[in-house]
């Protein structure tokens, strides 16, 4: 069964984002040190992945997703293969003037006999010329290796296996079902196993990446990059959760975490390349698209600006900064605050505008959502209220349309009056910018809405979608509130209150909050404010 499952995934996976991350993870698990995973630019020089093998020899891999490679196809690949073999590896960790690397051609299909013979002939000549030989890894080899390393981590409980298949069978154009995806990741990670061996944990983490690749493949095929990004961010967060829980040494999980981020990075690039030159992001049926366009634009702007912050916090210049800037200018008028799940997206856009010298506009955006929460969730509003950040966007949008929710989900049974998960973070954000008059104008409305905050327990459960043991706290804003106290509180140092893995990775934090909007709290927002202002 497992062979069939893995084979099915591999034959349907594309090269980029399809099985590339999973393959890099496999190499890492086999003892390779993964040095580089290509972003598929002109500097690739035929090498998608570069590693140092356990015996110290550098290895270069060219990955393809071709079912059967005929002679004609092979000839089209000739230039890349030549570069793979004949151009030395360019990496600081490898001596780059020597042709001493091993070259691998990896394909999730098979080579025709004529091609195999051609490679044998070529290798004979290469040996005489002192060039590296070309090694071939085909579908059968891949299946064997994947099954050997990860086979036993395939969900075996009928319920888990059913969830796995259901996730795989999802419509790739939908949003990622985060709650279900999290439960799936927990089952692969054997998350709640008592006292697991550290080596077993590392193996489980590695397997999780493989199965995450599998489950994300419908979104990959549909080019639904936002869902793919969310999937990799969630996988990375679950790796952090398990690593923190069992106190796994950094070297035993770092490669897996980096590969997840690599997956997210690839999906961002793919999306940005696809969006290049576009000014209109309508999708599908034009009759209904106008009804959800603004919600989609908000999601898109949140992710794109967060990607820009991600590079900024890593002291890197995003190669797409002009595209992102144009996108923000074109689309910001469509921003829609449909529920509190949109708060991180709005904050990301506001930080972006702030960093690009549009301070007033940034503050205007945050002020507008603060006012929206205070009014819409206050006692005077008799219409639709702002749903809490736990509800996915499609569920929230139903509230605004006369579609009926009778018994469909919980959202119609909840009352969002009088509490908010983001209001405290937003008032403190504004207080740090000394917007006293604006806050004074809103304070009466604000005092009618409780600050709600969920505190995960233990702390590592912050990285999970649901923390089984935490507590929910509601506090009223002070009545009256002292401006000086508010400013003092809002400017207090936050880093001690931020879970260590997030404190060490502020570049990851904003992406994490976009995917986990219910984890947004004053400490995390204050900390992001500190690091973004300090860079």
């Amino acid at each position, binding site marked *: 069964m497992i062979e069939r499952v893995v084979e099915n995934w591999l034959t349907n996976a594309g090269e980029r984002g399809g099985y590339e991350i999973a393959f890099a993870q496999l190499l890492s698990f086999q003892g390779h040190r993964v040095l580089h995973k290509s972003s598929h630019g002109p500097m690739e020089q035929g090498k998608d992945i570069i590693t140092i093998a356990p015996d110290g020899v550098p290895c270069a891999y060219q990955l393809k997703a071709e079912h059967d490679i005929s002679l004609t196809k092979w000839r089209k690949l000739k230039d890349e293969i030549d570069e793979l073999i004949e151009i030395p590896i360019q990496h600081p960790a490898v001596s780059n003037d020597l042709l001493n690397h091993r070259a691998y051609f990896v394909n999730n299909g098979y080579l025709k006999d004529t091609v195999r013979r051609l490679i044998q002939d070529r290798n004979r000549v290469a040996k005489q010329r002192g060039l590296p030989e070309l090694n071939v890894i085909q579908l059968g080899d891949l299946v064997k290796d994947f099954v050997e390393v990860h086979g036993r981590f395939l969900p075996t409980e009928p319920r888990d296996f059913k969830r796995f298949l259901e996730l795989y069978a999802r419509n790739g154009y939908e949003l990622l079902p985060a709650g279900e995806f999290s439960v799936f990741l927990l089952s692969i990670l054997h998350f709640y196993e008592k006292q697991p061996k550290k080596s077993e944990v590392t193996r489980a983490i590695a397997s999780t990446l493989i199965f995450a690749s599998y489950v994300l493949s419908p979104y990959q095929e549909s080019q639904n990059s936002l869902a793919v990004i969310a999937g990799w961010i969630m996988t990375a967060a679950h790796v952090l959760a398990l690593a923190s829980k069992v106190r796994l040494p950094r070297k035993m999980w770092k490669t897996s975490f980096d590969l997840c981020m690599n997956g997210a990075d690839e999906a961002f690039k793919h999306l940005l390349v696809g969006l290049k030159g576009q000014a209109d992001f309508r999708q599908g049926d034009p009759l209904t698209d106008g009804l959800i366009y603004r919600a989609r634009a908000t999601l898109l702007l949140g992710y794109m600006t967060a990607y820009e912050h991600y590079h900024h916090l890593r002291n890197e210049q995003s190669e797409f900064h002009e595209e992102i800037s144009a996108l923000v200018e074109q689309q910001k008028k469509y921003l829609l605050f449909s529920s509190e799940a949109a708060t991180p997206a709005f904050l990301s856009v506001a930080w972006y505008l702030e960093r690009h010298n549009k301070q007033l506009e940034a503050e205007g955006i945050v002020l507008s959502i603060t006012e929206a929460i205070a009014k819409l969730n206050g006692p005077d509003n008799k219409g639709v209220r702002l749903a*809490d950040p736990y509800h996915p966007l499609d569920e929230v949008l139903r509230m605004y349309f006369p579609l009926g929710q009778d*018994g469909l989900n919980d959202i119609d049974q909840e009352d969002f*009056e009088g509490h908010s998960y983001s209001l405290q973070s937003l008032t403190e954000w504004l207080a740090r910018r000394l917007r006293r008059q604006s806050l004074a104008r809103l304070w009466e409305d604000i*005092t009618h809405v409780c600050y709600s905050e*969920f505190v995960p327990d233990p702390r590592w459960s912050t990285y999970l979608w649901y923390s089984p043991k935490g507590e929910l706290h509601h506090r009223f804003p002070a009545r009256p509130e002292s401006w*000086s106290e*508010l400013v003092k509180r809002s400017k207090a140092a936050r880093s001690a209150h931020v879970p260590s893995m997030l404190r060490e990775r502020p570049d990851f934090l904003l992406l994490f909050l976009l995917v986990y909007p219910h984890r947004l709290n004053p400490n995390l927002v204050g900390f992001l404010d500190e690091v973004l202002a300090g860079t």
Partner: protein
Amino acid sequence: MSLRRREILVKKMLPDFPKLRIELNRKLRSDFEKQTHIRAPLVAEIKVVAQHEGKGGSYEAEDGQVKRIEPQHVRVPVEAPVVSEPSFMYEEALKMIHKAAEEMARKQTKILFETVHAAVEEVGNSLDAEGQPISAELILKMWEKIHFDFDKLGKPKMPTLVFNPIQSERVKKELERIHTEPQLIKRRKEIMNVKLVDFYDRESRRKLVD
């Protein structure tokens, strides 16, 4: 609230009509909610704030005190027929659900009163009628002890009065007295004036100061 499904131990080996049953289950659960609210109108007035993860927590009361939340599980049994009876149709299922809703409403209302009683006792705000029947004077005494909110026109938002249904006629008569007898009208006005001042005082604190 919970209308939990007891696991059926019979191994599934025949067609189960899952889609239809999910729809039916949703309808019946939704009806259960509605019927519970009809039978427990006081409970229905309470806002539902969902806790999506974790267990318990805390909230701040109007007076600034922080109170713990210890969730309580309330459940009622629903006896489904072991073998489908020839007459068991949707109406019968509804009857069964309504019976369960009745029981749930009773349990929830009991918990509500116990909670209110504990809170009132804690702050020393209870009023001992010393065995006297309910009267306009007693009602006014009660009003003196509680917080009132007012609308934008200064009209009080009157509290809900809960009493035994057998006293319904008497309560109606006593409430009428408050609005017709000059002495009681005057007293009511005095109380409401004090409450209005308290309310404005409370509301005036909703501001940002130095």
